[in-house]
Structure formats: C-alpha cells, structure tokens
C-alpha cells in the first residue's frame, strides 16, 4: 500500500472510532440522565431531606444518649432469649434443608419429571423468597399462636425458597458428562441423581446452608417484634415500657450474637468449600 492510501486509511479508521466513541458517550449520557431523573423523582417521593437528617440528628443523639449506658445487670436475663433465637434459626434452617432437597430437584430443568412441575416449583420458590420472614411470622402467629414455634416456621419457609432456588441452579449447572456416564451403566433415574448429580453439588449446598443459618440468626433476632420469640420480643417489650437502658442491652446482645454467628459460620463455610 502506498503512503498516501495508508494515511487516508488511518484517517478513516480514526474518524470511525471517533463516531463509535461519540455514540457510546451519547448512550452513556442518556442512561445516566435517566438514572438521575429516577433518583430525583424517588427522592422527592420519599421526601429525602439532608436538612431533616441534620435536624433529626439532634433527636437521634438524644435517643442514643438515653440508651447509654446499657444496663449490664440485665444481660443475665437475656440468656434465655438469646438461646431461643439461636434455636429458632437452627431448626428453621434444618427444616429448610429437608424441604429444599426434593424441591430443588423438582425445580431444576434437567431433573424435573415434567416441565409443568418445574414451572410450578419455581413459582412456589419465588413466592417463598419474595415474602419476608417477618410477614410469614405475622401470619403464623395468627395461625399457631405467639411464641417461637411460629418463628421457626417463618424462618423455615423463607429459607426453603432461597436454599432450593440456589440448589436448583447448581443442579442445572452440573457437568453433563458425569451424568451421561452414570446413565450409560444402566443406573435408574434415582441412582443417576445419587451418584452423578449429588456429589457435584453437595459442598456448595452445605456452604450455602451455613450462610442461610447465619442470615436466619439475624432474622430471628427481630422476629420477636411480632411476637414470634427470641431477643426481638425482649427488645420491643422494653421499648414499649420506655426502659431504654435495657433496650440498649438488647441491642448490644443482638449485635454480639450476629458478630459471633458471622465469625463461626464464616469459619465453617471455609472448611466445607
């Protein structure tokens, strides 16, 4: 190629690049403008106000100072509630594990018996995931009465939705070759699942279940707000009676519990995965 044509080729390429970049910048600008508009609109809707926050800081500070110092003698009385919180989380997660094993196989495209079953299962799981544990707890308190039993069921249902969906996605992602090999030996459908699919997903399943346990402990601390047992109940009782120092103790205990559970669950997950 001669020098003249080479130069003009380069010039054309540069011009094209400028045009492409301009188009990309315009697209970015349009999306950004849209995002800013959405944020502005929603800020108005929720009456976002830094001014109110600054003014409210005074009230918040007042509130916080009333909480301090936390009544440490109250700690001993919270022991039972703390234990109850953990027990709720443990059994909620355990029930979720039991329920999600069959549900995850039904909700995975490659192991479901029928496409209709697949869609129904996914719908059910989405419903369980969409509804907060607190909402379940409210309904169950009406159904089975106050106390931690309602809490366990609430935790269990929501966790089942999360765990089963995660597991179903893992099942859909297994190495098909290993599954084909098991089929080739003449194994039944169930045997293929046991030996071809399950070993590929068990560590991730356990790891996620431990994560759900951690999250459940966190949720279980507030279930008591609606009467479903645990520390939340003590918290709301003390608040209603304006016993602020005891409220602070509750918050402190909740904070420590979440911290410890986080640390333990983190360690366990690392051992499994």
């Amino acid at each position, binding site marked *: 190629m001669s020098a003249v044509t080479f130069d003009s080729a380069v010039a054309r390429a540069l011009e094209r690049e400028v045009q492409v970049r301009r188009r990309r910048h315009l697209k970015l600008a349009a999306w950004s403008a849209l995002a800013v508009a959405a944020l502005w609109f929603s800020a108005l809707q929720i009456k976002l106000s830094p001014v109110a926050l600054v003014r409210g800081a005074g009230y918040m500070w007042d509130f916080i100072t009333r909480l301090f110092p936390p009544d440490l003698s109250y700690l001993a009385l919270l022991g039972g509630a703390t234990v109850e919180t953990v027990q709720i989380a443990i059994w909620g997660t355990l029930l979720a594990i039991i329920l999600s094993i069959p549900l995850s196989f039904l909700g995975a495209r490659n192991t479901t018996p029928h496409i209709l079953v697949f869609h129904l299962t996914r719908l059910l799981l989405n419903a369980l995931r969409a509804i907060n544990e607190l909402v379940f707890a409210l309904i169950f308190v009406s159904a089975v009465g106050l106390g931690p039993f309602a809490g366990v069921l609430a935790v269990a249902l929501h966790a089942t939705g999360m765990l089963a969906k995660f597991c179903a996605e893992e099942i859909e992602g297994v190495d098909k070759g290993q599954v084909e090999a098991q089929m080739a030996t*003449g194994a039944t459908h169930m045997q293929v699942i046991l030996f071809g699919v399950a070993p590929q997903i068990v*560590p991730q399943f356990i790891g996620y279940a431990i994560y759900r346990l951690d999250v459940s402990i966190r949720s279980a601390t507030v279930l008591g707000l609606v009467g479903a047992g645990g520390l939340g109940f003590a918290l709301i009782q003390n608040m209603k009676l304006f016993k602020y120092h005891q409220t602070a103790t509750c918050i402190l205990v909740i904070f420590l519990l979440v911290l410890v559970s986080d640390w333990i669950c983190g360690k366990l997950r690392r051992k499994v995965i």
Partner: protein
Amino acid sequence: MLVPASTKTTVLSVRGLAKSYGNSVHALRGIDIDVREGEFLVILGPSGAGKSTLMRCLNRLVEPTEGKIIHDGQEITSKSRSLRAVRRQFGMVFQQFNLVKRLSVLTNVLTGRLAYRSTWRSLFYNFSKEDKHIAIECLARVNMDHKAFQRADTLSGGEQQRVAIARALAQKPTIILADEPVASLDPKIARQVLTYLKQVSHELGITVLCNLHQVEYTREFAERIIGMSRGKVVFEGTATELTEEILHRIYYRDPDEKDDKSQ
C-alpha cells in the same frame, strides 16, 4: 457390504440404522455392521462422521430414528426392552473420562454395578460384598488399585481413563463401547490406555468397539476396522487393507458425491 461369515459368532448386528435431528441434520444414514465376539473393532473416521452417534444408539443414550440393533439374538431397539437391561450389557468409556470427580476411585468403579442393585439399597451409597469384590478386581486388572481411596480428580488423565475402563468392566458387559478414549491424552499415555483396553478385554473375552480418529493407533491396535464418513460406512476390513485411497475416501469425501450404492 458384509464380510463373509468367519468362525466367530456375531454378537451384535446393526441393520439400516439411521438417526436424524429434524429434517436437516442426518447424523447416521443407514448403517449395516456385524460385530464378532471378542474382537477389537475400531471405527475410524473424522469428527462429525457419526461415530459417537452410532455408539450412543447402541446403548440407547440416543434413540435411532430408523433401523434395528440385534444383540445376543434379541432386538434391543424396540421400546419394550428395559433400558437398564440393555445398558448394562454395554460398558462405555468416554473421551472426557467422566468419572465423578469428588468420589473416590473405588466408588467410581462401584457405580458400574448400579444396574445390578435396586434403587433403595443404593440410597445409602451401600454396595454388596460381591459388588465390592468385583470392583476391586477390575481396579486391579488395570493396575489402579493402589489409588483406590483417592479422589478421582487427583489422578492424571491416563490414570482416570484406566479407572473408567475398570468401571466399564465392573458392569460385566458383553461389549465395551469406547468413544474416542484417548483423544485427550498424549501419545505415550494413549498407547498405554489402549493396550490396557485391548489386553483386559482379551483376558475376559469382552468385545470392544472403539471410536478413533487417529490412523496410527488404528493400525496398531485394530483387529478389524470400519471406516465411517458423513454418517455412512465406507470401508470394512483389516489394517493391511487400509490403503491411502481408502483413507482418502474416509477423510476427504466429496460433499457433492451422491450416495453410492455400489459401496
């Protein structure tokens, strides 16, 4: 084109086997093959020739659209035959080994016995004493028993394939189907694996159907060769009969060439 009957009995017959996906993809266009008992039969052809499809039709991992497969005097293509009974007669060895990575070598071989165990007993990953003996014996035959308790994914490629052969042996099959068993292995290991495959099947009187695309291995190991190209059989004979012209026919078949009835 069928070779006149020899002294060996025919253990597998394929007649007019065809497999199409939709109206456009014809993976197999009428295959006629006779497999003799105990032989090491290599199916040679380029990728896309239909070798894998053919093999998977034999153990019904893929259902053929037309044709018959007769094994041990019984037609296995009819829907009434239980898949389990059909599949356990065929031990399959895959290019990607397809061992269950997280399970131990021994457990992997034991999965070859699943067709003989009821679902309920396998629920607890339990195998009978007899199964365990068979599995360990098969492992010993491919000299992998010293790694019996290691996780399958800690093994090298050649070792994994030997374990896969042991798994196929554990089924006590009549025929082993090896689908490109050495395509992922380097030459020295590949020859070692093929040697094990041939030797062990001879010892146990098992027929082997082996898909290969490498001509050198075919010449070295095959007792009989079937050449496939674009879904049809284009050659049948021994290694000495595999001339350059025939190789050309297998590998460079003219796409405009009409289906030649004189084959």
